[in-house]
């Protein structure tokens, strides 16, 4: 019985779902690009949490390996994403996504 297993699985699922939903809602309703970015990170980490919990309960380490990959990927994504946001700010003096509507015909 590890520490993780002292908490029931349902609790992990519930927590992850809540965090994920907060992330989705954040992405949908916020207009600040950085906040949207943070919401995306929330979704990613909600998934990470769930993967770890399942991995422990199933006694299969591959779920946790997966999490490391996601973290590495997320780091790379943040680096590029933040760079883009910086550039957007330099060009438009704003990071409001509603201002960024020139990407069309």
């Amino acid at each position, binding site marked *: 019985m590890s520490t993780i297993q002292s908490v029931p699985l349902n609790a992990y699922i519930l927590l992850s779902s809540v965090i994920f939903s907060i992330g989705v809602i954040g992405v*949908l309703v916020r207009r600040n690009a950085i906040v949207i970015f943070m919401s995306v990170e929330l979704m990613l980490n909600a998934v990470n949490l769930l993967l770890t919990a399942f991995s422990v309960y199933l006694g299969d380490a591959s779920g946790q390996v997966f999490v490391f990959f996601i973290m590495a990927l997320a780091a790379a994504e943040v680096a590029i994403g933040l760079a883009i946001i910086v550039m957007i700010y330099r060009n438009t003096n704003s990071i409001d996504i509603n201002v*960024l509507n020139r990407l*069309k015909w």
Partner: protein
Amino acid sequence: MEKYIWLIPLLPLAGFVINGLGRNVLSKGVIGFIGSLLVLIAFGLSIGAFFQVKSSGLPINADLFTWFSVGGLHVNFSFLVDQLSSIMLLIITGVGFLIHLYSIGYMHDDDGFGKFFAYLNLFVFFMLLLVLGSNYLVMFIGWEGVGLCSYLLIGFWYSNPSYADAAKKAFIMNRIGDLGFLIGIFVIFNTFGSIAYADVFSKAAHTPGAPFVLITLLLFIGAVGKSAQLPLFTWLPDAMAGPTPVSALIHAATMVTAGVYMIARSNILFTLAPQTMEVIAIIGLATAAFAALIALTQTDIKKVLAYSTVSQLGYMFLGLGVGAYTGAFFHVLTHAFFKALLFLGAGSVIHAMGGEQDMRKMGGLAGKIKITFVTMLVGTIAIAGIPPFSGFFSKDEILAAAFAHSTTFYVVGVITAMLTSFYMFRMMYLTFWGKFRGTHEQEHHLHESPPSMTIPLIVLAILSAIGGMIGVPAVMGGHHELGAYLAPVFEASHKILGEHELSSSTEWTLMGLSVGGALIAMIYAYVKYVKSADVPVEDSEERPLLANLSYNKFYVDEIYDFLIRKPLDALSGFFYNVVDRLGIDGLVNGLGKGTIESSKGLRLLQTGNVGFYIFMMVVGIVAILLYNLNLFSK
């Protein structure tokens, strides 16, 4: 001899390769020497083959290799030298050599000297293939090859657009005939299961239900194209655009007689199709008369000879049509001598005149270019059919056979012979008698041609004068050696046709009539063009109606233009403007336009609003999620 037969066509081919590759490297002397020498060696071999066939009386078969074998069709690349082809070999290589020799002098100042000899050698090669082949396919290769060489040589001075057009015209008109010939070969194979002469001819007599009329008509269409008969004759006069030796070799002595050779070769098939024979006789006679009428008023010295060639070819077909195969072939032989002579003589005149071909600018040349004058006079007497020169004997034989067949044919034939005599002597009188009508500069330039040009003239003049002696009819105390020699080739046909013996008094009367007619026409021409010194009017002046019709070639080209070219043009215009521009282009452009228009509508979906994009993404993810859940629940 069998072992060396393949060398006969191969030597000119070697000449083509050497002269063709070395045309810019070798000097003119070397090119002329190689080109002529190889044909001369081929001539020597042909003489050897001729004497072997003559002494043994048996044809020489030379099987080279199996060309291909598909299903029931086995085609050997093999040569056959029999009585018929041995004489053709002698004509092609003998007259061919003289014309090569002549070309050395005639083409001396031309930049395309090497190219010219290469083409000429290639022509000799294909012509030899045509007559040597022992099946229809080898003949067909030669047939197509000479057509190609004819095209190349007519358009030899291709930088002149009208010459290039004449070449294309010759090629296209020949194609029409060639298609008939090719289909004829297909039908022969379909009927007899073979295309080798030996098989086809031996089976023909024992296959009563075979479609002889169809086969022979198709073969005849091929001959009509190649030998410039009505209605496909208009290419030959235009073919005079080529250098004069070409006109002499290809468009007088050899290639245009290929049709006659082909029919004489297939004589048994034609004999078994009497309807076709009638068609051939009528078309031949019509061509002879029609071309003679046009020749009456031509002013270009080569055009006169060209129409005269068409007319004489008509005679040959008349001979074939009435079953006088020997007579027709005899005329091929004598015609090769005197028409090559006349063309080369005309070339010599043109050479002396510095390129002038219009007889209205000539006159009084007899004293200036004596050898040319005398040799051309011999040729003219020969073609006019005045004894004892060669043309008389061959023409008389055809006319006698025509008389035995139908009096109408004979009458038209004699009238045509009178016309022939008239226009040929008209040409002579306008060129050599009277006063010089050219410019002072041309008069100063007048000179006899070099020996390489006059020697062929002299040799051909001798042949034209005495060539008829090999076919002196029995009624004149001769033995008709040519007839006896060729007898094995036409044996089967003669058995079917039977001999139509004319009484000797009838024959003498017929001869008297044709000779008398020719002499009257000659005297009439003398009175008109020498005594009254009549010169054909300039193009700008008015002519009497009939003369105008004749001068303008009865507007045959214009009629073809109207009947064939104009409707074809209109049809092409329709296909271009309606089918292509509207139909096909419309479809392709319509697809493009449709894509652009629908994209115009679709691109409005892109709002550029990032929030909306993200929303749609989430909607998509949820949709996928729901879809998968749904699947798993099953």
